[in-house]
């Protein structure tokens, strides 16, 4: 897929940026606190990209240009804004800050505040659930269902000749007579859970077993199917 002739490669990368969570709109106090913090570890903050997060103080007016000025004065490089209202986001655009999606703000508020500590951006380990697909009608021969980026839950039978695919887990609460492929993008942690195993083929992250290799003891049983190393394990539940 990599084209040696292409002038660039555009790829997604993830970085850890400190995030400044504002807890009030008093910028003078913030400037003081920040200055003393920077004094303790000037090298750490020099030219450090910083994300400004307003999600904890919705509705409070914050003078964004002043705030950006304070941060720059401390040697930091404000790069993005998270949260804030429309006006604040417009102001951020004027200041050439990126606008980050206001994700996971709710769960963050539950945590005890750790002021201005470099925060690790959340790793989207559980985000797969958001894309899960629920199927309540029988999946017929010739039909294919793919849960992209998430789990697939089916509460109906899967006919032979039908195919289920998911980037995450597959849960089947009817008889599985067709094919089920979990972790099709290579997620080796993905599993298949099934109440009545009669599959034509099961696969996790590309490792598969055909119906004749399912093991006579497993057929018709409730099982889970997962990868242990390179081996596809079928285990009764």
């Amino acid at each position, binding site marked *: 897929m990599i084209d040696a002739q292409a002038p660039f490669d555009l790829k997604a990368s993830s970085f850890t940026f400190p995030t400044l969570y504002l807890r009030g709109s008093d910028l003078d106090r913030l400037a003081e606190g920040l200055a003393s913090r920077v004094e303790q570890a000037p090298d750490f903050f020099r030219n450090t990209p910083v994300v400004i997060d307003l999600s904890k103080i919705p509705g409070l007016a914050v003078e964004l240009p002043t705030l950006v000025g304070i941060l720059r004065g401390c040697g930091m490089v404000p790069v993005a804004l998270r949260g804030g209202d429309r006006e604040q986001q417009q102001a951020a655009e004027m200041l050439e800050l990126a606008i980050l999606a206001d994700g996971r703000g709710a769960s963050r508020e539950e945590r005890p505040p750790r002021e201005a500590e470099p925060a690790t951006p959340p790793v989207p380990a559980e985000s797969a659930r958001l894309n899960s697909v629920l199927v309540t*009608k029988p999946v*017929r021969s010739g039909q294919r269902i793919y849960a992209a980026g998430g789990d697939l839950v089916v509460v109906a039978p899967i*006919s032979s000749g039908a195919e289920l695919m998911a980037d995450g887990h597959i849960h089947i609460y009817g008889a599985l007579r067709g094919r089920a492929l979990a972790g099709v993008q290579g997620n080796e942690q993905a599993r298949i859970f099934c109440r009545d195993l009669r599959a034509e083929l099961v696969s996790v992250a590309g490792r598969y077993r055909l119906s004749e290799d399912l093991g006579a003891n497993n057929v018709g049983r409730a099982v889970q199917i997962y990868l242990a190393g390179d081996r596809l394990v079928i285990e009764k539940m």
Partner: protein
Amino acid sequence: MARIIVVTSGKGGVGKTTTAAAMAMGLALRGHRTVVIDFDVGLRNLDLIMGCERRVVYDFVNVINGEANLHQALIKDKRCEKLFVLPASQTKDKDSLTKEGVGRVLAELAEGFDYIICDSPAGIEHGATMAMYYADDAIVVTNPEVSSVRDSDRMLGILSSRSRRAELADEPIREFLLLTRYSPTRVAAGEMLSVEDVQEILALDLLGVIPESEAVLNASNSGVPVILNDKSEAGQAYADLVGRYLGEKLPHRFLEVPKKGLLSRLFKG
């Protein structure tokens, strides 16, 4: 407003046309104005089974193409005045069935009839998809053997994705299972899938079970829908099916091995 019923299966030779003819006659005998349409362009059979093959002048494709009007093409049944047949063309290409044309004819029929029964050709090609496209209800005709069950399953998938109701995200087509050519003796001998087996695989409401019967072949040969033969088990089973379709609670009959057969098996064993 008429209810449009498609009789379909995927697989050929399972009894679609026999069922369409019997069901149409059954509904008409109960006083509902009913028309049955042959969608099997090029391989028409319905007119034979209805016994009106000598009276075909214009056909479904003529009406779609505007070469004849419905009044000219509809054949009134001689046994029941509420029943009409719209025959298929033997000579034209099946691509003459266009979605717009079929829709237009069905809309016109819907004004004058209570039930429109579409006899689908075998397969999942153009004719079959046209027959089911406008349906409100589908009767999936299945023989108790694996290849027929799988084809029905495939057809059910197509019904739920390629019909007008699916495209408009309307209430889905009501799907019913009809088992035909059922032989309790062969089921008992393990040579045939049982009603329970088929129902478990297809997960569908069972509208009826028609026993394997010589009466069906005789009826086809003589052009008399088998439902008119109320002495035969198949005829009675079709009459039950029509009742069940209309909402009556009727037990399924002819599912057990006949008494004599059971006794002889016992003595043999």
